[in-house]
């Protein structure tokens, strides 16, 4: 909650003065319509967070400026003895506009408001005068009033402890120093503390110390659930912490620990003030809707660590190896790989250089690649020097492009990387493994330039030697001159180099496949034909003759029209074929008797039958089948 203070005007309640004032007000009111429209009246107010105020607990201060123009933003200056403890946190401009239409008259109003937020960190107990603040825009200047605050020391509470553990002994610039910040809470305070904040003066000196990393997981790789609020560079931030039970002096404490590494940036002797933890202890509670305890009244308590001194030394300048580029730590390694190993003189080779180690690897850089402990200047040229590099998974990778300048080069030589080990206070070096290169001269060599060499008898039976990389390494020195030297000279005397010049002979035909498939198809077809012929041959010839006869009779029946002929045909069919069931036989007899009746009637031998009878005769003929 903020309380407000304004400059106050005391009014004297005397009748004469009141009358004079009333006359003046009326005069001004009469003149107002004729005067030029003036800007809205400016006003500045000062507001502070609610007391009490404690040492090292920030006081929030707000200066509100109203009635100024929207542009430019008014400037603010803090005056008074406490001004040096003030820090401007931010400015919040706020502009609101409204439009009114009354009886067709449009009126527009706007309200401009700037809020300047300050934070004051009282360095010690006592009374502090805050203000005045001067707000200026163009020729307009407004000043706030003053306010006095009483700052007291937060009482020390023995039920909690703050401990900062830093490695003892001399440390070096660039060394990663592990730090543990521990907050111990006794059983009687457990559950009553909130708004915890830890101040470690060393971490506020951003010019001299830098936080490198913070441990966020436990040894099993799980994310830490607890946390501590620690002020770093004056800004409180939440850092992951472990939580465990520890017993000291017969009391069982809950200990929250945040582990981080800090890198000193400048050498010097540092006297570091004690780290403190300030926290609110709830003294009164209430129950909320869900039955949980909510603090309604609290008091601030704190705990202090001991002050300490720290000596930060610079890395020794004596005995620095040529491959030293500022890396500090332990166990650095350098690995170099090449994208190609068979090249011609002048060809570019991309080298990938990987640095690993326990130290400031992220900010590590490479030494010069050309030098006595790296690439020889007469053999190599750096086309693209390694740039900033990429850091990932604890490894920093650089890429460089080099060119081989001589065909005598057999390898990318070891590249040396040096670092300073702060624990042993000495320099160490590590070299990459050499990379074998096969370099050919850039000049084109023709067949005539090759000089025949006597075959190497030791190599004829062996074939490709070397079973593994180690053996290859041993053999490489001996075989450096082998690949081209042992190759027989290029001659063509044993070859028949005439070519076939008939295009037809050179091109095969897909007909080959076609006739092959034709053979298979014809073979299958032959088998089918044979089986068909075999089956056909197995049929009885008499039966075939009857079938043929019946077919001829049916044809004759269709062409005949006289009753006598029809009767003859039907009788012939009935004799050679099989009439079948009784119904067909009865139908046959009926047709025959009708035909006979017509034939034996006077003049009926040539009499034609009617269509109905012929149709019935045809049906009967169709029913007569060859005998089974």
């Amino acid at each position, binding site marked *: 909650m903020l309380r407000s203070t304004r400059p106050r005007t005391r009014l004297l309640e005397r009748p004469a003065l009141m009358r004079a004032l009333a006359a003046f007000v009326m005069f001004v009111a009469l003149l107002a319509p004729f005067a030029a429209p003036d800007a809205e009246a400016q006003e500045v107010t000062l507001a502070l967070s609610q007391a009490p105020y404690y040492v090292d607990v920030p006081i929030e201060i707000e200066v509100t400026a109203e009635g100024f123009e929207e542009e430019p933003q008014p400037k603010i200056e803090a005056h008074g003895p406490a001004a040096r403890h003030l820090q401007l946190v931010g400015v919040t401009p706020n502009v609101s506009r409204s439009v009114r239409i009354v009886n067709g008259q449009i009126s527009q109003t706007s309200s401009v408001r700037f809020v300047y937020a300050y934070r004051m960190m009282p360095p010690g107990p006592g009374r502090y005068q805050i203000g005045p603040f001067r707000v200026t825009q163009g020729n307009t200047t407004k000043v706030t009033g003053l306010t006095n605050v009483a700052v007291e020391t937060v009482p020390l509470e023995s039920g909690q402890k703050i401990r900062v553990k830093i490695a003892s002994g001399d440390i070096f610039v660039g060394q990663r120093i592990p730090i543990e910040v521990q907050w111990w809470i006794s059983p009687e305070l457990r559950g009553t503390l909130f708004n915890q904040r830890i101040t470690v003066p060393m971490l506020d000196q951003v010019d001299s110390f830098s936080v490198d990393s913070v441990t966020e997981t436990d040894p099993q790789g799980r994310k830490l659930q607890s946390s501590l609020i620690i002020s770093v560079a004056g800004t409180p931030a939440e850092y992951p912490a472990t939580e465990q039970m520890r017993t000291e002096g017969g009391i069982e404490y809950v200990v929250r620990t945040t582990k981080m590494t800090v890198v000193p940036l400048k050498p010097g002797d540092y006297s570091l003030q004690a780290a403190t933890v300030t926290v609110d202890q709830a003294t009164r509670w209430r129950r909320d809707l869900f039955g949980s305890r909510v603090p309604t009244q609290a008091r601030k308590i704190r705990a202090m660590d001991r002050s300490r001194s720290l000596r930060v030394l610079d890395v020794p300048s004596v005995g620095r190896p040529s491959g030293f580029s500022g890396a500090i730590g332990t166990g650095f390694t350098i690995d170099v790989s090449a994208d190609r190993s068979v090249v011609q003189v002048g060809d570019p080779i991309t080298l990938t250089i990987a640095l690993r180690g326990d130290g400031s690897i992220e900010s590590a850089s490479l030494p010069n690649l050309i030098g006595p402990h790296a690439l020889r200047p007469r053999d190599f040229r750096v086309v693209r020097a390694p740039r900033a590099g990429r850091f990932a998974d604890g490894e920093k990778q650089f890429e460089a492009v080099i060119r081989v300048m001589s065909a005598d080069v057999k390898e990318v030589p070891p590249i040396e990387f040096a670092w300073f080990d702060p624990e042993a206070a000495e320099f160490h070096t590590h070299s990459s493994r050499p990379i074998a290169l096969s370099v050919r001269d850039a000049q084109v060599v023709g067949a005539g330039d090759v000089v025949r060499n006597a075959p190497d008898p030791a*190599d004829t039976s062996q074939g*490709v030697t070397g079973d593994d990389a180690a053996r290859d390494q041993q053999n490489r020195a001996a075989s450096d001159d082998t690949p081209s030297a042992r190759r027989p000279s290029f001659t063509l005397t044993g*070859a028949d180099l005439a070519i076939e010049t008939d295009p037809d002979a050179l091109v095969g035909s897909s007909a080959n496949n076609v006739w092959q498939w034709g053979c298979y198809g*014809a073979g299958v077809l032959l088998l089918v034909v044979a089986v068909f012929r*075999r089956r056909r041959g197995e049929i009885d010839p008499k039966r075939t003759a009857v079938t043929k006869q019946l077919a001829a009779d049916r044809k004759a029946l269709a062409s005949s029209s006289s009753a006598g002929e029809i009767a003859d045909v039907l009788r012939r069919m009935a004799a050679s074929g099989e009439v079948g069931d009784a119904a067909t036989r009865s139908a046959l007899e009926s047709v025959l008797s009708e035909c006979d009746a017509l034939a034996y009637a006077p003049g009926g031998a040539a009499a034609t039958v009617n269509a109905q009878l012929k149709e019935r005769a045809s049906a009967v003929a169709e029913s007569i089948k060859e005998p089974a």
Partner: protein
Amino acid sequence: MKILRRTLVCLAIGTFVAVNIGASRAHAGEAESLVTAIEAYSDAQSATDRDARNRAFTRAAVLFEGAATDGHATADLWVNAGNAWLQSQSIGRAVLAYRRALELNPRHARADQNIAHARSLLPSWVPRKGSSGVLDTFFFWHRTLSRNDRQAIAALAFLLTCLAVAGAVGWRRSALRGIAIVPLIVWIGAMGSLLVESDTARRSEAVIVVDETIARASDSINAAARFNAALPGGTELVVLEERVYFTHVRLANERDGWIPRSSYELVTK
């Protein structure tokens, strides 16, 4: 029967005409490119400057190889390509072309002679393919006859078998039954030979075409070299396993290593 006979005759004539028309059309295009290749080869032979000669033979080789890849190549065409590669001093590609020629015609004398010469140009330590075993001697025809030859023999044997069986069944000539056994055995032998020579085995033989190929101990550019010298173009090998960038190969002396995928070509595409 008349209808059946007429249908068969029509089918045979139609197939013959269609095949000949298609073949002659394809032939025309291929013949044109082959004439160009042959002219390029002749020009290369007449060139006196060494570099120009190499370039001309390379051009002729590319043209021959293009024709061989596009159409129905014969062993002679691959031999032409191999001769051009050999004269352009690309031993790897020459060996590959001769191997492809011998794949089509294992008895091709010129291919046999020239691949032997190309192999002799390789360093002495490069392992060569071993000599034939007893089984190879017995089944000589399995090695000496090309795949196409064996396919043709199988087709003819099948037709003869069917003819004999058809005669025995359809025309009741019982003597033909015994005769049918002979072509049947030939057909089974030829088909067995084709099946034994499975696709997998044929498709794993390869030749290095890039000079100075380093065989490595694993499929990484940074892996240690497997041998003490780079493999020259023309080294014959068997592909064991193909990965994205590297291939696991075995040489004729049973040594193995990993080489870049771009450094070799399979004999059978």
